[in-house]
């Protein structure tokens, strides 16, 4: 393991210390030794990584968890983002991450060097809309925003909690293991599973005392949500204006997961099956979006390693922060760093001088002065 080595300031255990101590004399060097510019070369391609030339690749890459149960991605958090891109007919490719099942930044969408993470700005779908990269809702000039927001909130909260509960606690852990942990070596999968169950219980406020009551409440809210959504949908193709919105992506992802991944004994699944129009809606869109005859707007590198590095090109101005602000912050940070570097350097010099003066300087000779090799075999 390459841990930055440390220097010992206490003498008592100095003999056990392995030190690697480096200082940069930044301000002093710049004043005393104005050095000419060193020859700086452009990289010999492709020796310098990712400075690859070529045309900019604007294609989107969705990084999600692996597919299973006939779904392109079996994770209930990733599937809505996938469906959102499909509904928007976006040109994207699908790649999988199998080594970070407990991360909250997956799924994320990459374009060039930039990425929209799921743990920022309300999620990947919100980020896609906010950046206008892929915006389903912008196709609806007369979208009833209040209804949309209320429906989205219901799906994102009540149905999301119900999915969490059912997946990690309600039906046991086998489905979750298949989705998240099959690619992790033993015993990482088990440890992370236990940790996730504990996190879910904490998130849902489950305790031994209120477990049953909480379970009943979660299922009741889910039923009410299904009822409301069924009424909202009616016999339309989509929830709003017969055009897809992010609500369709969110609910469709939930419904596909519940109907395909959860076992027949699942309470959530049986509740959803009570609403024929929701089931038909799900099956219809599944056939349209997920079969081979659907619009080939993506190709999934399902066999690719999660560690693969896609070729990407530098992109510009996609979700960028104002450079002037970043520059100003860097200047202040740089000033702080310089000031700290001066104090640090001064302290180190004093420590060295004290050490040298106390310890008598020269240690050029070896410890073993009597010429005997005590380590001989």
């Amino acid at each position, binding site marked *: *393991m*390459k*841990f*930055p*080595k*440390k*220097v*010992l300031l206490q003498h*008592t255990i*100095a003999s056990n*210390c392995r*030190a*690697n*101590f*480096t*200082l*940069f*004399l930044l301000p002093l*060097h710049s004043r*005393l*030794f104005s*050095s000419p510019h*060193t020859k*700086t*070369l452009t*990289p*010999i391609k*492709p*020796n*310098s*990584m*990712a400075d690859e030339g070529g045309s900019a690749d604007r294609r989107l890459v969705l990084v999600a968890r692996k597919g299973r149960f006939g779904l392109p991605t079996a994770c209930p958090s990733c599937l809505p983002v996938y469906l959102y891109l499909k509904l928007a007919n976006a040109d994207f490719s699908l790649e999988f*991450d199998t*080594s*970070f099942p407990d*991360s909250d930044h997956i799924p994320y969408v*990459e374009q060039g*060097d*930039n990425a929209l993470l799921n743990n920022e700005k309300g999620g990947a779908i919100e980020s896609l809309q906010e950046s206008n990269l892929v915006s389903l809702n912008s196709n609806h000039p007369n979208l009833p925003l209040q209804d949309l927001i209320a429906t989205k909130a219901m799906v994102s909260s009540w149905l999301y909690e119900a999915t969490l509960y059912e997946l990690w606690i309600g039906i046991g852990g086998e489905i979750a293991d298949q989705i998240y942990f099959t*690619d992790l*070596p*033993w015993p*990482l999968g088990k440890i992370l599973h236990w940790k996730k169950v504990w996190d879910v219980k904490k998130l849902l406020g489950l305790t031994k005392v209120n477990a049953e009551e909480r379970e009943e409440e979660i299922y009741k809210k889910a039923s009410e949500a299904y009822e409301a959504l069924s009424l909202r949908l009616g016999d339309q193709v989509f929830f709003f204006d017969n055009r897809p919105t992010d609500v369709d992506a969110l609910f469709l992802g939930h419904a596909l997961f519940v109907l395909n991944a959860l076992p027949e004994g699942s309470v959530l699944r049986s509740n959803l099956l009570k609403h024929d129009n929701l089931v038909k809606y799900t099956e219809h869109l599944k056939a349209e979006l997920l079969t081979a005859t659907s619009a080939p707007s993506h190709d999934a590198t399902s066999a690719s390693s999660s*560690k*693969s*590095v896609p070729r990407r090109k*530098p992109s510009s101005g996609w979700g960028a*922060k104002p450079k002037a602000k*970043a520059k100003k912050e860097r200047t202040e940070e740089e000033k702080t760093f310089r000031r700290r570097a001066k104090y640090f350097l001064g302290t*180190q010099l004093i420590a*060295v001088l004290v050490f*040298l003066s106390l*310890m008598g300087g*020269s*240690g*050029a*000779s*070896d410890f073993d002065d009597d010429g*005997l090799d*005590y380590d001989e075999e």
Partner: protein
Amino acid sequence: MESPSSHPKFPPEQEPPNHLDDSNGEESESESEDDEYEEEEDSEELDPAAERERLKSLFRRLSTDPVHLRVHDVVIKGNAKTKDALIEAEVMDHFRNARTMQELVQAAGIANARLKDLEIFDSVSITLDAGPSELPGTTNVVIEVVEASNPLTGNVGVYSKPEARSWSLEGSLKLKNLLGYADIWDTSGSFGWDQSLELSTGVSVPRFKSVPTPLSFRLSLLSQDWLRFSSYKERLTGLSFGLWSTAHHDLVYNLTWRTLSDPTRSASSSVRRQLGHDVLSGLKYSYKVDKRNSNLRPTSGYAFLSSSQLCGLWDPRSLKFFRQEFDFRAALPLGFFNSALNVGISAGIITPITREFTKTPSPIPDRFFLGGHSSLVCSLTGPSSLYGFRSRGVGPTDRKRTNSDERDFVGGDVAVTAFADLAFDLPIRVLRDAGIHAHVFGCAGNLGRVSQGEGFEVERFIKGFRSSVGVGVVLPTKLFRVEVNYCYVLRQFEHDRGKTGIQFSFSSPF
């Protein structure tokens, strides 16, 4: 404790011939060497002048001719807790091979040092006592040890980690010789200014029953912060077993759970794809030879290190790769101003063990990184340091997510470094006496990639070498080698973090 039956006795051998020195024309003596020793014990009864003359004669003979003597018995005293077998195993071979007085004294010195190296005794004294009178030419070796009165030691200190620009508070506890096998149990912990944490506990024994080599076991939890360099933090939880350790060979098995995370959310795509959990299960074998005359200022000799690491022995889903490092150093005395030319070359390669290893990226934390200012002369750790460049400041990079000019250094699969260092004394006597000397150096290095589908071209790799030269002053102390250098970067590439100017280096040869 003494158990006469357990005291090893050496088989009786032929009587050693009398070796009396007549070469100086002195009066020959007919007494055996045993008688001489007996006479030494009765010296108080003799005339003091004659006694002095006799002792002078004895020392003269000891210094000129071999005085044949063998060990009859080894008596161990003072070890209430420490096993006899352990002490005997440390010293017996040396005494068994001694055939003369001179060799015996040397063996006693070696045995003394080995017992002190166990770190479980407050003091060790070895006495050569007269053997039985019926066995002339023999001696009994009496080893008297004083076991550590307080087996528990501890210390606390504040340390700095300049590469990560942070400080840490560290403490450790050691419990020595709990089971009597010179076992050392230690627990250490450190808490860094940057929220980094390290906890480890372990035990080591120099030898356990029939296993002749030291064994060790360590459980550790530590986190490393590479956010400034490569936008990731590394958390390692693992077990380490020292299986075989000698002066030149070392075999260790490591089982580690490693988690890479990016709390800043600014990692480049290359790093982001490698975030997550992995298990590293592998053997690491090192072969090291260091024949240099000094670790701090070598002027002659050579050193060689080969380190091989094979990971993937746990589970088919764990990380699988092979990593190899070579490091060679040589020191040539030049004969003027106590000068010496130190040269060295290091190389390393890492490759994933998969069918499509040229297309599968190697794990970033295990790749090679160049940069930093650990001493080129002292350290024997494979390709790592390159004067004039910051730590992890050379080689392949990837742009960070935040769309700034900042980049992550992602390391290389192949690394080569070379250096030449000419050290010489300064003309000022005070500085010479203090061991302070100057040196002129030049170094070069490069990183290349084999995996990730780019292929490896030797010509392109050679053309991509970075280089620097410089001059500096070296202050060798007992524990550190302090260097104040002026480095001039001759060649660097875009995004490298090289800087011409004055740089300090503190290195330890251990």
